[in-house]
């Protein structure tokens, strides 16, 4: 590796750094780190989930602890405070990490907890999108999309498609806490390869919609019965360009929304019944993933 600025003294210009250990930024660095972490955490009795490899759970009698790792951020929860504290202690002994207390800011999402539940929002992220789109001064609109809008590929091509792609990419991440813009973002992302002027206008309308309430988010109520409920719907031949249908579903855990989707189906359906069945298939696939046994999250709670 080339030596960092500020390291070399005079006369050492020819030398380079020979790495003995992994360094941030190397391709294999994250793998090395995860291998080390999962080895440590599995030796403590945690079990890796087969659905999501970054989820680890441990169950001992009544006490249940879950641990979620996102590259180098770790979320721990459980129904037994002692077990949670022990897990933290274990991690502290193995790694040099920092306890940030109750979660407040994770993956750009702001968390606000009260005794009624947890509220998540991407307020700062939404405000940044509005600012970078240059619409801080624009009038907000009430809907993210014009009613019945059919985006065609007829208008002029954008001279700078990267602008559109970046904006829609950020909107996609914003759907993490904003189910209300899921549909329009999914429509917009169909045109990523060849964005046109009309598409950009539709994307900017979403931003103006965001301005109406940038702090909106999801609420996870503490009053829950841990029952999974899923609702699905389809829009037959919703895409006017390909005549393919659209799947929509949402999954609730108790009263809180945990998963949703709006997606154009892979094949053309000849009847709306076919489209409905495909949507139900998608929803039941998601339910399978979220199913009690496979995610191993809530058997003990109920």
């Amino acid at each position: 590796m080339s030596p960092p600025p500020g390291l070399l003294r005079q006369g050492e210009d020819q030398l380079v750094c020979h790495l003995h250990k992994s360094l941030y930024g190397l391709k294999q660095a994250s793998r090395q780190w995860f291998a080390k972490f999962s080895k440590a955490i599995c030796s403590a009795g945690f079990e890796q989930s087969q659905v999501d490899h970054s989820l680890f759970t441990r169950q001992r009698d009544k006490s249940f602890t879950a641990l979620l790792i996102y590259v180098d951020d770790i979320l721990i929860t459980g129904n037994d405070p002692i077990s949670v504290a022990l897990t933290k202690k274990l991690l502290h002994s193995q790694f040099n990490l920092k306890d940030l207390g109750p979660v407040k800011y994770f993956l750009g999402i702001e968390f606000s907890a009260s005794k009624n539940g947890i509220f998540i929002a991407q307020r700062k992220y939404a405000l940044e999108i509005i600012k970078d789109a240059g619409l801080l001064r624009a009038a907000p609109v009430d809907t993210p999309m014009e009613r019945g809008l059919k985006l065609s590929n007829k208008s002029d091509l954008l001279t700078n498609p990267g602008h559109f792609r970046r904006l829609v990419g950020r909107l996609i991440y914003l759907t993490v806490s904003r189910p209300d813009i899921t549909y329009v973002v999914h429509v917009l992302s169909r045109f990523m390869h060849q964005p046109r002027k009309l598409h950009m206008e539709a994307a900017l309308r979403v931003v103006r919609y965001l301005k109406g309430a940038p702090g909106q988010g999801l609420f996870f109520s503490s009053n829950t019965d841990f029952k999974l409920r899923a609702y699905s719907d389809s829009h037959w031949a919703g895409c006017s360009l390909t005549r393919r249908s659209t799947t929509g579903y949402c999954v609730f855990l108790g009263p809180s929304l945990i998963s949703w989707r709006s997606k154009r189906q892979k094949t053309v359906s000849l009847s709306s019944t076919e489209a409905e069945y495909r949507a139900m298939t998608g929803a039941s696939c998601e339910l399978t993933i979220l199913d009690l046994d496979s995610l191993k999250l809530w058997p003990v709670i109920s």
Partner: protein
Amino acid sequence: MRFHENTFPFANAKPNFFSQHYDPSPIPLITPDHNLSIPFPLPKPPSQTTQIHPPNTQSTHPTSLRTYNRLPKPIDHSLNQSLSIAHPNPPPTPLLLESDILEPPTPSTDINTIIPPTPTPSRRSSRHAGPPAKLSDYVCSNVYTAQSSSFLPGPPKGTRYPLAAYVSYHRYQPLHRSFIAIISNVTEPRSYSEAATHPEWQAAMQSELQALQHNGTWSLTPLPTGKTLIGCRWVYKVKHRSDGSVERLKARLVAKGFTQLEGIDYQDTFSPTAKIVSVRCLLALAAARG
């Protein structure tokens, strides 16, 4: 000539220093000794002054000297030297001081004559008053003149839909409110050249280098033949405490791994990125626990 008192860069002068007029001659008296001719930077006193008197305190001399050092114009180097010599010990200007002391300080009654008379409120110009045209490219929620809002009926000028009308924090707890205020407020340098000017970031980089060397992360060797070099760069991060306050400034050395070739430089990669669905599941679980 107008005397822009407020824009004059005397930051730490005595407050009554501005209200009194002074003779700028004490400073130029130094320059003939060193055969220097520089344009005198101090604004001339207004023409309506009737009395001009030298500064009546010694403290004005160091202040004016410091202003010389801050001049944006290229100054002859010898002047800076002479100033830096003159600054620690006042004796280079004993003659002036004597003359100051000998001359009796003028009574401060002339303050009233110096202050320009305030315009009478009865007459107002008919010129259209509005925000400057140069501000049309910027978002200024609070740019509107008091005149337009008080005299013209209707909505105030400026932003029609200020963002402040749509962001509300009143539902958050006070603690959370202060937290989001702090995390929205910090900026991080983007490059080494940007960070190298700040001593705090320099210290952060130094400690990172020490930690890497302590771990034995690398050793310095000549480049083996046939190998390609991987670049590296600094990444800067402000670390927050859980209440949002700045805990420390972190500098991190990262390798530019994108120059690595698969199969030659590395075999497998994997990143433990959680599904956002499992994040939400975990949250629903944590919320239920209370």
